[in-house]
Each structure stands twice: as C-alpha cells, then as structure tokens.
C-alpha cells in the first residue's frame, strides 16, 4: 500500500529471495526432524496468515471442504481452541473429541479410534496425547495428516514454532540470540521443541531450573545448563518461562512452590536484572506469582499475548501446509 513514486521494491524481491523449498510433509510430528529452511518456510507462511486476522472477513477458503478432527486425549483449552479457530479461518470443518467423549474410556485402542476417524474421511487429525510417539504411531498408519499438538514429554511443535515466530518477529533474527528457558524442563515438550529449533538457527540456549528438573543429559543437545537464574538473566535476549505443571509433578522432583518462587520465579526484583529489550515469554496458562509475578507478566517486556496471536497464525500455516498437499 504505497504511493507509486516511493514504492519500495520489497514486495517483489522478497519473493525472489525465498528458498525454492516446497513443503512436502503431510504430518507435523516434531521440530527435531525439520530443517531450518522448512521451519523458516512455515514461519513465512504464518506471516501471510497472520494478516488474515486483520481483514474485515477473517476467513479464507484455503481448506474448504476439509474435515479436521481435534483429538485431545489430554486436557487442553488454549491449544485446542487455537487449532479450532485456525481451522475455522481456513474454512475447514471441525470435530472436537476429548478424553471424556472418546471411546478410549470404553477400552478402544488408539489405533481403532483413529481408523474410525479415517473411515469418516477426516483429512487432518490434530492429536494431543499423554504418550510420546502417539502422533507418529498414527501418522505411519493413516492417510490423514497428523499434527502433533503435544505428546507426553516429547514435543509440542506448534508451540515451538509460535515461540520462534514471536522471537523472529520481535528481534528480527534468531542466530546469536541468548534464549533462557526456565522451569520444568524434564517434563516439558515445549522446552524440547524450542531447543531443537533454536539450535538449528544458531541461538545460544540456557536451560535453568532445579537439578531434578533440568538434567545434565540436555547438554548433549548443545545447550548450557544452569541452576542459578540470577547469573543467567543479565545476558538474556529472551526468557521463556515454562509453566510449573502441577498435574505432572511428583513430590520428589520438586522443592515446593515457595522455594521454587524464591529460587527461580521471575519476580519484580529479579526482572530488574534483565536487559530492557529482553523479551519475556510464557506458553500459558500462567501461574501468576509462581513462574512470574503479575506485574512482570503484564509489563512492557512481556510478549505473552503476542504468542497467543501468533499461535493462531502459525497453526493456520501448519494446517494449510500439511492439510493442503495432495495425498
């Protein structure tokens, strides 16, 4: 939308500088197996879809006639809603199946449930499951596209992508950035997806948390481990605070909430250690007063709500790319 004389050549040149890569995956199971080019391709596609949300009519016909099944065998509100809205904006039809409404509670196996979904000609299956590898198990057996919406403590690729998108959007790059991920790393699929992807882009990643929740094993992935958050924060470009997952915690891993806040919570005082341009991220839902103080979560360094908006765009891109290819 520029006047002719001052029109910049960016529109055309941007197209030309893109890679020749074309998306060829029917499934998105994790970020570990994606190349940096593929991830960038998804993020570029998300750029285009983000703009759809600003239109008068926030809906495009890209997946018209396709059926998406949101199959959540583990509770989730925001991820499910985000996928659902993304599907609506692409004109796909959506069925939601959750733990309580699924026949899994009647003893049906995962594979049988999925076979039934396929018999109904579901084109895209978005799966949240407590077992790592469940999405891959189905992807190998079904014609439908399978999108991993979080499997056990393995990966949560769309969360990783939306975190990367937000970092790229705010910082303009990822290489050389120091990204600090704080919290329950051991049980966190969000942390894994982030680590796998950030390292491909040359970011420096430090994982911070109690030694029980941040095992040394992770160093093999090429990240730094620290148990002293105050030492790490001053050099951070991005701080990603993971939710303390009460539902997964067992007592032996965890020092107790009060002690966690004292040692690792991003309190108002601790936030003063951060550079003024450091981004504060959180995948949500936020435990205010635990991982992060309310004032910090609502402060001007926080991009938590941008993550939500970007999550929608990223999921539209993923559904479009995986669900749109001819199978």
């Amino acid at each position, binding site marked *: *939308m*520029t006047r002719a004389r001052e029109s910049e050549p960016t*529109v055309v040149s941007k197209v030309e500088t893109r890679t020749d890569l074309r998306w060829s995956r029917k499934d998105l199971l994790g970020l570990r197996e994606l190349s940096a080019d593929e991830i960038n391709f998804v993020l570029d*596609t998300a750029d*285009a879809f983000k703009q759809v949300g600003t*239109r008068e009519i926030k809906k*495009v*016909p890209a997946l018209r006639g396709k059926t998406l099944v949101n199959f959540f065998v583990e509770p989730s509100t925001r991820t499910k809603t985000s996928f659902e809205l993304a599907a609506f904006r692409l004109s796909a039809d959506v069925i939601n199946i959750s733990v309580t409404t699924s026949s899994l509670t009647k003893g049906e196996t995962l594979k049988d449930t999925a076979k039934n979904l396929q018999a109904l000609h579901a084109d895209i299956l978005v799966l949240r499951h407590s077992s790592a590898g469940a999405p891959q198990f189905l992807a190998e057996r079904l014609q439908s596209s399978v999108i991993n919406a979080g499997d056990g403590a393995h990966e949560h690729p769309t969360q990783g992508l939306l975190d990367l998108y937000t970092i790229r959007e705010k910082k303009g790059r990822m290489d050389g950035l120091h990204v600090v991920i704080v919290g329950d790393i051991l049980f966190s699929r969000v942390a894994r997806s982030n680590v796998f992807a950030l390292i491909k882009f040359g970011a420096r990643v430090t994982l911070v948390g109690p030694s029980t929740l941040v095992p040394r094993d992770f160093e093999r992935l090429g990240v730094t481990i620290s148990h002293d958050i105050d030492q790490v924060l001053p050099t951070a470009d991005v701080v990603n605070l993971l939710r303390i997952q009460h539902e997964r915690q067992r007592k032996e891993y965890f020092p107790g909430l009060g002690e966690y806040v004292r040692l690792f919570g991003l309190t108002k005082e601790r936030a003063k250690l951060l550079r003024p341009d450091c981004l504060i991220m959180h995948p949500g839902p936020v435990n205010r007063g635990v991982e992060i103080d309310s004032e910090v979560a609502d402060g001007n360094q926080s991009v938590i709500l941008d993550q939500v908006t970007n999550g929608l765009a990223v999921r539209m891109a993923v559904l479009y790319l995986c669900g749109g290819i001819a199978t």
Partner: protein
Amino acid sequence: MTKSDTSVASAVLIMDGDAIRRALRRIAHEIVERNPDLKRVVLAGIPSRGNEIARRIADTISVIEETNIDVGTIDVAMHRDDVGTRSELPIVQASRLPLPLENRTVVIVDDVLFTGRTVRAAMDAINSFGRPARIQLAALIDRGHRELPIRADYVGKNLPTAFTEKVRVQLGDDQGSEGVWLIKEEKR
C-alpha cells in the same frame, strides 16, 4: 519451460522489452481515461510479476498525470480452489491494500490472463477486505482459454495459444533479459 527426455521446448519471442514498455504505457493511458478520479484507484498486483507490472503502470501514470496512485498487492494462494489437488502448494503471502476499499476502484494487475481462476481468487481476496465500488482487470498478456466468465478491461497483447503451450514473462526483476516468450513443447 521444462525439458524432459521425450520432449523438446522451443521458445518464440512474442514481445521484447520495448514492446512491453509500450503496452504498459498504453494501459496506463487507458486507466487514466476510464477513471477520471485517479485518487480512488488502487492498482493491486498479483505476486510476483503482477506487482512489478502494477508498479510500472503506476510510475507511468504518475508521469503523465503528475499524480501518485495507490499500489497494493493481493495474495491469491489462500483463495485458490485447487488446494489439495495440486502436488505443489502455492506460496502464500500477505496482501497489502489501502483500507477502507469502499468507494474505490481496484484494478487487479497480472502478467498473463489464462483460465481466469487466479482472477476469481483475487476478487474473493479483495472482497474479504471490504466492498470496493468496482473491480477492473489489467493483464499484460491475454492468452485465452477462459474457464470462468471473466474478461480483462485492459490488455497489453492478445496472444492466441494452444492450451498446452506456456507463456513465459520475464521482467527486469528476473534473471536475464526482458520479454514475453511462447513456449511450445514438442514430442520427439
């Protein structure tokens, strides 16, 4: 455009750089003639070459009328009707249009007008941004074979083609020299 073992492609030059420039200058004059209130006109290019053509037309209009004209870009990829039937997905891009579109004339600009399906998608995309007063269509080449009731308001050159032939348009932003070629693939 592509070569395989069993076929050979021959390229016939249809327009050179000068011919393209003259055609676009004429289109610019026609747009001025048909749209007395140029402030209301938006040239919306379809990526990527439609954008370049829209910019060139806008430059010409700014010279002949000494007034600047809005230029935008309109994504069609997410509005296509053949997703899931093509082995390659079109790359989606953000659209940029001056808003609101009410009371404005949007001129869709593309390099080659063929089946009309891209233009149909572009019209859908424009309508999702608002309700312009009218939509017009400018194409550097009209090669026929329409599959929808669509015709161009401004045409650089009418080029009769066989359905299987291809039209290659190269502009300054591409590698190599400017021109329009008709590509015939012949079986060996």
